[in-house]
């Protein structure tokens, strides 16, 4: 089994960990045990498809960059300098301002040993934080799922959610804590056939769902637990979100809507601590310039509005956003004015961070089979964020990793 937490010494955290074996809907009054300030939220925003790191954080001063990318190097024009010989893509103006203002950080060269160029394998690695896990199966858990197990006892609502899809991504999977995926608040009503109004908590059908307990196989029990959580969630989330009004102009894109919902969850005080959202389309094998610029512009607008909204609700100092992708792309552009699957790439971090640029600028002279060599193990980034959340990082990651030092000190 992957990363079984070490045997507990019976302190408060161990106690909470033990309690987290209960479904999240039960230990509501345990929330009182949590010290104030432990309502920190981590949003992981995943750029799916393999974001071209070199054209996101561009080594503008490196002649090798321009030589390797005769057409794609055009993004240098209008790029936003970061002060270490690199610059953010022209479409990332708002996020650049945040880096300048100390609310954003760039960490160069993140990756893992022996990079894999398969989207799925590499995504699995980022999601499980287990590069050596041979195969993902039904019992495989994700790093945020394991973190959620530690947080579960301390929150009334679901400790982790995915916004924007109906699939629960691997990184949120846990053996003990169900992470719902949410798209709109209205999706959380449970409607009666006769009236199309919410089903009351005392209705017989609610007892049927709550009483469908554990008396079948593992799959049946999973479904029964999911249904029970669904019914409970319908009551709870609707209540918690009722008071929210946006305090920023969220763009009318899919990502804009997802991040507005993420903002609702963050400010609701509902106890959701871990949020996953994603933006797809980064697999830019061909004619990359326009596609990539459009995607980054979407990211820039939606993430900036999200940060603004959360800050305007007074929750800015208890939020960190990690932006990453499953891999970067090859240093040299291909013949289709695109780039193929590569390896190391920068991650971006916003919110309560040590602002600015971290890590050495990528060395384009020392490549591994045409790919950038990682200078920071991605698990050091995870360790940093988990520590900031107040989660036992070694238990989640299955070992000690030196925190990358990007999150603000606790």
């Amino acid at each position, binding site marked *: 089994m992957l990363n079984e937490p070490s045997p507990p010494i019976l302190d408060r955290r161990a106690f909470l960990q033990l309690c987290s074996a209960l479904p999240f809907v039960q230990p509501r009054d345990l929330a009182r045990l949590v010290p104030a300030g432990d309502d920190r939220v981590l949003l992981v925003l995943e750029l799916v498809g393999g974001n071209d790191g070199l054209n996101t954080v561009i080594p503008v001063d490196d002649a090798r960059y321009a030589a390797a990318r005769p057409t794609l190097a055009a993004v240098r024009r209008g790029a936003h300098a970061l002060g270490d010989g690199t610059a953010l893509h022209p479409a990332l103006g708002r996020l650049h301002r945040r880096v300048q203002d100390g609310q954003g950080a760039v960490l160069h060269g993140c990756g893992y040993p022996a990079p894999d160029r398969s989207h799925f394998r590499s995504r699995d690695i980022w999601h499980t934080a287990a590069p050596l896990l041979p195969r993902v199966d039904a019992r495989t858990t994700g790093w945020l799922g394991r973190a959620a197990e530690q947080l579960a006892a301390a929150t009334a609502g679901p400790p982790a959610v995915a916004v924007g899809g109906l699939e629960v991504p691997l990184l949120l999977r846990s053996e003990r804590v169900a992470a719902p995926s949410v798209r709109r608040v209205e999706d959380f009503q449970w409607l009666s*056939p006769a009236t199309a109004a919410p089903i009351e908590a005392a209705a017989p059908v609610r007892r049927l769902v709550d009483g469908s307990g554990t008396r079948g196989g593992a799959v*049946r029990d999973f479904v029964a637990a999911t249904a029970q959580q669904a019914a409970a969630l319908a009551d709870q989330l609707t209540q918690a979100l009722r008071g929210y009004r946006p305090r920023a102009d969220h763009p009318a894109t899919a990502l804009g809507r997802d991040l507005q919902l993420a903002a609702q969850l963050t400010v609701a005080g509902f106890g959701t601590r871990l949020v996953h959202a994603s933006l797809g389309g980064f697999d830019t094998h061909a004619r990359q310039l326009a596609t990539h610029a459009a995607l980054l512009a979407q990211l820039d607008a939606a993430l900036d509005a999200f940060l603004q909204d959360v800050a305007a609700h007074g929750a800015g100092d208890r939020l960190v956003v990690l932006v990453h992708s499953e891999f970067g792309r090859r240093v040299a552009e291909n013949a289709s004015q695109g780039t193929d699957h590569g390896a190391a790439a920068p991650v971006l971090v916003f919110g309560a961070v040590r602002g600015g640029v971290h890590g050495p600028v990528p060395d384009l002279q020392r490549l591994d089979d045409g790919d950038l060599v990682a200078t920071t193990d991605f698990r050091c980034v995870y360790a940093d964020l988990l520590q900031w959340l107040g989660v036992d990082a070694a238990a989640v990651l299955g070992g000690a990793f030196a925190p990358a030092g990007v999150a603000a000190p606790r």
Partner: protein
Amino acid sequence: MSDPLARWEPTARDPFDLAKVGHLLRRAGHGAPLRTRRELVRAGLDAALAFVAPPPAEAAPVDLLLREAIAFADADRVRAYRVWLVLQGAHPLRERTSCFWHDHFATGNQKVQDPRAMALQLATFDRLGLGCFDDLLRAMCRDPALLRWLDNDLNTARQPNENFARELFELFTLGRGAYGEADVREAARCFTGWHVRDGVFHLQPHLHDGGPKRLFGTHDVRDGDDVVAAVVARPESARFLARRWLQWFVHPEPDDADVAALAAVYERSGRDIGATLRTLLQSRLFFAAAAWRAKIKSPAEFVIGTVRLLGARAAPTELAVAMASLGETWLEPPSVEGWHRERAWLSPAAWLLRSNFVADLLAGRRGKLRPSPATWFAGVDGPAQQARAAVLLLLDGELDRDGQQHLEAVARAQAGAPPDIAAAAVLHAATCLPEYQLC
């Protein structure tokens, strides 16, 4: 040791009953009305197999709806056509297998931007999906939608693009670990110049790399057909496909021994997909207890299956939208890997949406129910009998005592309500049982 793929034979203690028929129809099709299921119980296993896999029509006519979808070049119409096809259920196993291949060769119109090519790819699955795998794979290597989806229309001798070759090995035939990076490079060279022009396959000899290439260290190959011939004969390919079929039709986590057994059947059949699947669908393995309600219904299985069980009439376009909101948009898989299945389908949010879909359907807010909910309870008196009728209709009569009692409580609470409202409440409650989410 007994052969897991030996034919299952009914006995007095383990007869071919409503539960067995329901299992077969859910896995090899998208369910069927109670009347059909009862007829098939009487007719026996062979008749039931003939029902799910009738002999193919002489020449499948290109349907009017398909022509219309193509003429309008409209992905929504293509989706609606596919939903309509499955709703009709004329060839349950073929429709089911086409869904399998759509997941296997998962292609997305968002990138292909050609609904006509997408419709034709799905028609290819209908045509070849139960034939010899060699033929299907050769057709896929010339499929305009797939070539575009995986950038092979940019793959040339001077500038090879490896995307198509990599997914051919990783996702379509062998799986990770059964090939090397060198094989990907060599296979990519074989497919150089296999392009698309005006929406049809177009070979460009001057862009093809005519040099010598070697696959798997032993096979000298020249072009894409050589790659197909080399890869389909690999034992890893038989096991890869066998595992996927077992996951799709029997159990999400098949035993290695069962994978090997099905791979052997497939190889002995001359890589005949239909023959392999027919052997599987009448096997002891298929009817074994471990396979029973072992899978979670996909949105399509849930939505279309519910409509078929209830005999509802609903617009295919509307059902396609419902499926999409539940995470399964045909023609738009989330990635080249296809849909993440089983538990990934069912978050609490998805459960609520599924439940609300049934509520809307029963109340006539989404399509029409014919007969009306109360018709199912005609001549059925009292909560216990109503609960039993609902379980018969929706769960093949299989439910434990606790579930039965909860359902009776729902029926009892409806005493005095108008018949349609009461019946809708009981049927809705039956779909809220965990068993109903399982396939």
